[in-house]
């Protein structure tokens, strides 16, 4: 295990109390907390470099542009992409919508299929539903096994010539399951389909190499990886991005505008209509530097340690059901569970009184919740700043919930 306990000091928010208890933040799968280095980078940008990018013929605008483009280079390096293959946007949702509306809308037709997994977040479902209303393509879902892994047999049998695009989460935000993206991508490519990877949970928590994955498109968000909200990334293979239409039009993304038509700027700029989230991109760049300093292998091994400890302690509680793989080799730090007949919202309220923040609900994955046959689950999710004492606090809180509800 890697001891990252010392880095808690880098996160000012963790110093405060909530309802009279030290804050125990167990909702990083929803959004992560931010280290001082990221907050400082954003402030510094606004104090020393703020101007609009790619426009002004003055020194300050050049400085702003340089900072923004440096962030792009940093992102590209982090996922082993070329910097021209990295487009900034609002977040994972916006990135996947760009693919659905920029590629799907122009390439899907009636009879075609979009193959998704039942583990997908709504962000990798609803855009395809919206586009299917125009294209007539059909959505098909790959179920999961009883051990909460993707049903590979079902995947291969569903993957026929009708499938034009496969949408896969690299790591489920509910089950924690890490999917074998490379293996799935190889099969998809052999069947002539493109692969869109929702990496919102993967990129913050493990080393992700787009070439090793052979993803055609890959999306993630800054705010789940220590960066600010409002910034996300769409990676796409160069030739696909060149051929893809922009989903949004406006300033910044054009080469020339005539009265009734326009030509687009070079990739990736044609996917960045309007003033981009400049300071947020700079903040994301700082978050990546911070993560790189720790090393993604150390991040992963810390989370393996804390999550195995959590699984072990949760496993000791009677009538507690965990929804997700038991083995750390193919799971991340999101742990969903239910406790007897206590509703997850009630668990959340009880834990909140002890300063513990967990998630309760369907976690923006209703099709998955239905297939698990639970209306809601509680979810604790871990990141680099969590320590074993956080797990202990969670366990104590769950025991109090058992007492309040009179669960044996």
């Amino acid at each position, binding site marked *: 295990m890697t001891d990252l306990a010392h880095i808690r000091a880098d996160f000012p928010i963790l110093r405060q109390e909530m309802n009279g208890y030290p804050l125990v933040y167990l909702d990083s799968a929803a959004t992560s907390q931010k280290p001082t280095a990221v907050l400082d980078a954003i402030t510094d940008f606004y104090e020393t470099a703020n101007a609009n990018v790619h426009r002004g013929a003055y020194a300050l605008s050049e400085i702003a542009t340089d900072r923004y483009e440096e962030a792009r280079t940093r992102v590209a390096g982090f996922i082993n992409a070329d910097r021209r293959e990295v487009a900034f946007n609002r977040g994972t949702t916006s990135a996947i919508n760009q693919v659905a509306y920029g590629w799907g809308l122009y390439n899907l037709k009636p009879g075609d299929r979009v193959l998704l997994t039942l583990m997908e977040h709504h962000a990798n479902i609803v855009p395809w539903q919206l586009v299917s209303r125009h294209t007539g393509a059909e959505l098909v879902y790959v179920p999961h096994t009883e051990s909460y892994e993707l049903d590979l047999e079902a995947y291969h049998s569903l993957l026929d010539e009708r499938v034009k695009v496969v949408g896969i989460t690299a790591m489920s935000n509910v089950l924690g399951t890490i999917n074998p993206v490379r293996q799935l991508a190889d099969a998809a490519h052999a069947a002539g389909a493109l692969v869109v990877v929702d990496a919102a949970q993967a990129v913050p928590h493990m080393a992700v190499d787009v070439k090793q994955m052979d993803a055609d498109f890959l999306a993630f968000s800054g705010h789940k990886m220590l960066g600010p909200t409002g910034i996300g990334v769409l990676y796409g293979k160069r030739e696909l991005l060149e051929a893809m239409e922009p989903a949004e039009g406006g300033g910044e993304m054009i080469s020339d505008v005539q009265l009734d038509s326009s030509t687009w700027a070079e990739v990736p700029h044609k996917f960045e209509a309007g003033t981009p989230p400049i300071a947020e991109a700079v903040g994301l760049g700082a978050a990546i530097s911070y993560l790189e300093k720790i090393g993604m292998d150390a991040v992963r091994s810390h989370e393996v340690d804390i999550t195995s400890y959590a699984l072990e302690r949760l496993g000791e509680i009677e009538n507690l059901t965990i929804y997700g793989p038991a083995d750390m080799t193919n799971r991340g730090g999101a742990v969903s569970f239910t406790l007897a007949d206590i509703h997850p*919202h009630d668990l959340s*309220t009880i834990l909140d*009184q002890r300063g513990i923040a967990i998630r*309760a*609900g369907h976690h923006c994955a209703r099709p998955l*919740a239905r297939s698990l046959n639970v209306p809601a689950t509680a979810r604790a999710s871990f990141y680099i700043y969590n320590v074993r004492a956080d797990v202990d606090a969670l366990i104590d809180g769950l025991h109090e919930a058992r007492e*309040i509800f009179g669960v044996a």
Partner: protein
Amino acid sequence: MSLNELYREVILDHYRAPRHHDHLDSPDGSAEGKNPLCGDEVTVEIKVAGDTIVDIAAIGVGCSISQASASMMTEAVAGKSREEVAELVRKFKVMMSIEDSAEPVVDPDRPGASLGDLEALQGVRKFPVRIKCADLPWITLTQALEQ
């Protein structure tokens, strides 16, 4: 804030053993209520004779507060006139601070004088994010009555 104020015994009792929890045969009105953010669901069915709610059912899934509120509501509403139910709904909303009123609908010196078992839900007020859970069945009842 104390969790004991929120999770009163009577609330847990209604959660575990909800009253009027079976669908009615040919109801005169019914409505489905959902809280999309947290997933609470409740269906309210009513049978009306003349001006009276002669029977009511509330069937749903969700947290203890939403389901206990639904169960207590069915007991409070059954056999009441439309006018009495409207007054009950109003008082409930005032108690939960959903509607403003200077009127003290809950008399701390006379527990049960005004809203009966439902007063057990007043602890929810201190947990603002949960007020919508308690309110869901009442919104749904109002919709069922409008049919």
